[in-house]
């Protein structure tokens, strides 16, 4: 890959960016600000003080602080909440006095049995597949960094970006429940109540979003260098 310039109107073949011969900012003695992207010189500071970005004053770190430990924490918490999220009912429909609890999977099944295959697959992807990809994908990335695997760093970076982008779509079920409980409030005829599973499911979504934002993809590339 040597591509650089792209998009409409790009001067054909002209490189807009070229790498300083395979040097990372860290190896060259620079820190990139997490908040605004400004490059700053990395300096050793006395203990107890921290460097701040010369442009936006955010604290400067070479890598996200405690990235691996924090990501594991959020990930394990999410994994624990994953069980009640799938086992407990996310809502209960009371129709003429008869109450029927719904879990995430039973909701998907209803769509399948009523013939709404497109919606069934959509909900299945958003509520079941996406959280699973996030949990497994982040665990894989963490392990790959821990054991310093050199295998396909570019694809692993891409996996990380996908995990970051798809995370929010799991909120689909939570929003659907919030619409349903507000709309179906016809006292004696039909009501819909949210269930404990919904809170657990929301916790999984939030915790995996935090886990993804705690992970630092630069660790994938650090493994390739001979820096201890």
């Amino acid at each position, binding site marked *: 890959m040597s591509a650089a310039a792209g998009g409409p109107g790009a001067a054909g073949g002209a490189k807009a960016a070229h790498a*300083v011969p395979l040097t990372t900012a860290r190896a060259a003695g620079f820190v*990139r600000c997490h908040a605004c992207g*400004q490059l*700053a010189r990395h300096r050793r500071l006395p203990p107890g003080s921290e*460097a701040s970005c010369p442009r*936006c004053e955010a604290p400067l770190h070479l890598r996200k602080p405690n990235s691996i430990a924090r990501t594991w924490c959020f990930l394990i918490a999410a994994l624990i909440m994953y069980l009640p999220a799938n086992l407990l009912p996310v809502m209960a429909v009371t129709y003429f006095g008869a109450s029927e609890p719904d879990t995430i999977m039973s909701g998907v099944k209803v769509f399948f049995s009523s013939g709404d295959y497109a919606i069934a697959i959509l909900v299945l992807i958003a509520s079941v597949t996406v959280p699973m990809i996030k949990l497994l994908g982040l665990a894989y990335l963490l392990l790959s960094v821990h054991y310093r695997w050199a295998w396909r760093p570019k694809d692993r970076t891409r996996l990380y970006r996908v995990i970051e982008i798809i995370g*929010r779509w799991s909120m689909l079920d939570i929003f659907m429940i919030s619409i349903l409980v507000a*709309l179906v409030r016809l006292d004696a005829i039909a009501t819909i109540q949210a269930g404990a599973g919904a809170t657990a499911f*929301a916790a999984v979504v939030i915790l995996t979003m935090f886990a993804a934002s705690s992970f630092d993809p630069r660790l994938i590339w650090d493994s390739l260098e001979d820096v201890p």
Partner: protein
Amino acid sequence: MTAADSGHELVACHDCDLLHHVKPLPVGTTARCTRCGSLLAQNRRDSLDHTLAWTMASLLLFIVANSFPILSFEMGGRVQENELFSGCIELYSQGWWPLAALVFLASVLAPALRIAGLLYVLVPLKLGRPPLKLVPVFRLVEVLEPWSMLEVFMLGVIVAIIKLSALAEVVMSTGLYAFMGLIITSTAAVVVLDPELIWRRVPQQARTDASGAGGSRPPRGRQPAALAEPNA
């Protein structure tokens, strides 16, 4: 600022930390990392003007979407109307306040703060002077981006309508059409904005003032680091 005499700028990749010299980009082009493909720099046509326009449109649509019902539901002769925030209120009254808070954040508060924050930053910049507290306000705008989930909410509405279609008829109302427009305008505002342009407008002397004797800070023994010099 960090641009060298040659016009090159030193940029580190957000995802893999590789250093690049980036030339001034022609309008409408982007520069990507040569190692991992992540976006390094971009030059969008009139980025800040376009962002301001889309954000002003978002403000109008946000007000309409929150003032009118989004759905109405008829069953057994009774009509139930639903506003954008009714879901939060109902979840709260059922005792699920963390859920209510999350739905409120993702569907109302985060989009509202993002629109307000962007207008607060962009209007003064358009008039030629950076606003007070530009840094914390714009940082909040950036932090809230993943928490503003309008398009996911819309999908939730669609799934809810289909789920209820077996029980009774659900009718889409004015608020929902405004909401669909809001999704388009707020997504467009995100796409056309180049945050680097805003960060470049952080006033230099405000920073020295703030860390000087007259400022209300300095916080917790932080020391400003030196700017990177290109071609080092």
